[in-house]
């Protein structure tokens, strides 16, 4: 579904990505793990079109993406849950969700979509009139995911959904991600929470200082010596 080939990204003199190549097949959950500053967020921003690659190509559903601006890529079925949630603090939960379906157009019937999000995260239904800024961290993350799902994406990209959340909340979120995966949604997950991400992922890539240094099935990497020593402190 998504084919990233030889992508390099530069921020001025600084090269953030070096010849990054990876793929996400339909129905897969692929994780990209790595330390701070490895370039994980840059990969997602490049896929969404917020950052222009200096070299390389990105294909989505068989067609090259590089020429399209971000809003066209969203309309083509790519959704991003940004790092740090980036909810709209003054907007109600319900309004946020409806705005998430922005690309569906003004006449679309959004109720079934909203209901699907409430089924996944029932707590959002009980908070629907509340301003998003008053939600807890975990609820904000659920809202950010719900907002992305409202666009009915073919590919859901998540940027460190576990950031700043309590372990029990992370467990709950990952259960929901597993549920989405079970429904056949294609997911690209960027994480520093390596154990959880590898457990859930079909396949994973390890990104360090802008280069992919390892790849494999989630459970393989989980058992890998290097990963265990560097990321899991085992």
């Amino acid at each position, binding site marked *: 579904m998504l084919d990233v080939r030889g992508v390099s990204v530069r921020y001025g003199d600084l090269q953030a990505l070096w010849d990054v190549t990876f793929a996400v097949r339909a129905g897969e959950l692929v994780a990209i793990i790595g330390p701070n500053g490895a370039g994980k967020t840059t990969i997602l921003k490049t896929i*969404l079109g917020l950052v222009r690659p200096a070299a390389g190509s990105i294909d989505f559903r068989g067609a090259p993406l590089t020429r399209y601006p971000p809003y066209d890529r*969203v309309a083509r079925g790519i959704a991003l849950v940004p790092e740090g949630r*980036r909810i*709209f603090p003054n*907007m109600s939960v319900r309004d946020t969700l409806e705005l998430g379906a*922005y690309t569906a157009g003004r006449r679309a019937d959004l109720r079934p979509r909203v209901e699907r999000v409430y089924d996944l995260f029932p707590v959002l239904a009980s908070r629907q009139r509340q301003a998003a800024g008053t939600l807890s961290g975990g609820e904000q993350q659920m809202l*950010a995911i719900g*907002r992305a799902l*409202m666009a009915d994406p073919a590919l859901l990209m998540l940027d460190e959904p576990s950031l700043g959340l309590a372990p029990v909340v992370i467990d709950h979120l990952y259960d929901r991600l597993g549920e989405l995966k079970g429904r056949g949604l294609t997911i690209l997950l960027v994480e520093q929470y390596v154990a959880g991400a590898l457990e859930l992922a079909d396949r994973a890539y390890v990104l360090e200082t802008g280069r992919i240094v390892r790849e494999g099935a989630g459970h393989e990497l989980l058992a890998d010596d290097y990963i265990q020593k560097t990321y899991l402190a085992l």
Partner: protein
Amino acid sequence: MRRWAAGGLQGLAVAAGAGLLLALPQVATRDIVTAVFFALIFITLAVSYDILGGFLGYLNLGQGAFFGLAGYVLFILIVKVAFLQHLGPAGPALAVLAAVAFTALFARLAAYPLFQLRGAYFAMATFGLMLLLGHLITNLGGLTGGAYGLYIPTELYLPLRPAYTLALLLTGLSVALNALLARSRLGMGLQAIRQSELAAAAIGIDLFRYKSRALVLSSLPSALAGCLFALYSGYIDVQNMLGAEKTLFPVIMAMLGGSGTVFGPVLGGVIVRAIDVSLKNYLVLPVPALGIYGLILMCIGLFMPQGILPFFLRRRL
């Protein structure tokens, strides 16, 4: 129920205010009507400024550029295009339409360079744009009258009474525009951009298109206000059309009353103009009027950083 009651109360207050203002010329002195006319002009500037400042969260220090540019285009057309002077009232009306259209086009084109910038850089660039316009007008003397300014024939002056009524209508339309915008798809998109550009892009909003639409929409009432002001004055120069107060007062008014709310800029405008008029005409103080403004702004910033209206609305909830 309470929400309905509050909405009804607000509607009643607006209707009562509009009725009072409409009746004002029948009962008040010429001085007071003139003062309210100027207040309405400034309130329109503040309300239209707030489309960018409040909804989109971009500090536009060049709102006065739309005001001044429209006034100049209007006068240049009236002075240089001879047949417009022989059409009666239709002449100036046509010229106003052309001036507003030109200003909107200017706003659309200015969007390209301006929205490459954010935050303080955007604010500086908008201010610079207005200064640039002032310099251009000063130096293109053949067209603009340069430092001497431009006059229109006295029979084309807009008398106070119709000018006042038109200003009242314009202010009402400007407020209505913001109220509609607050509920529209465009308005929701602008508020999303204000709260997070990244998230707004991630849900598929075309950031540039939305920002430039906001800029063009905000230019329209300001341009009309510039035309009204110019037609009433009968004389324009860089100082009265593009002076710094045309661009700074709207910002102060919106912030004071409550940026991002529909009636905040109106309230702020009333307060600032009331202070201004009383300081200049009625109270004689040993300190300059600007010192008083500064003091008020500091107090608002310290105690009501969201502005007066949000402060009291939150209190009630």
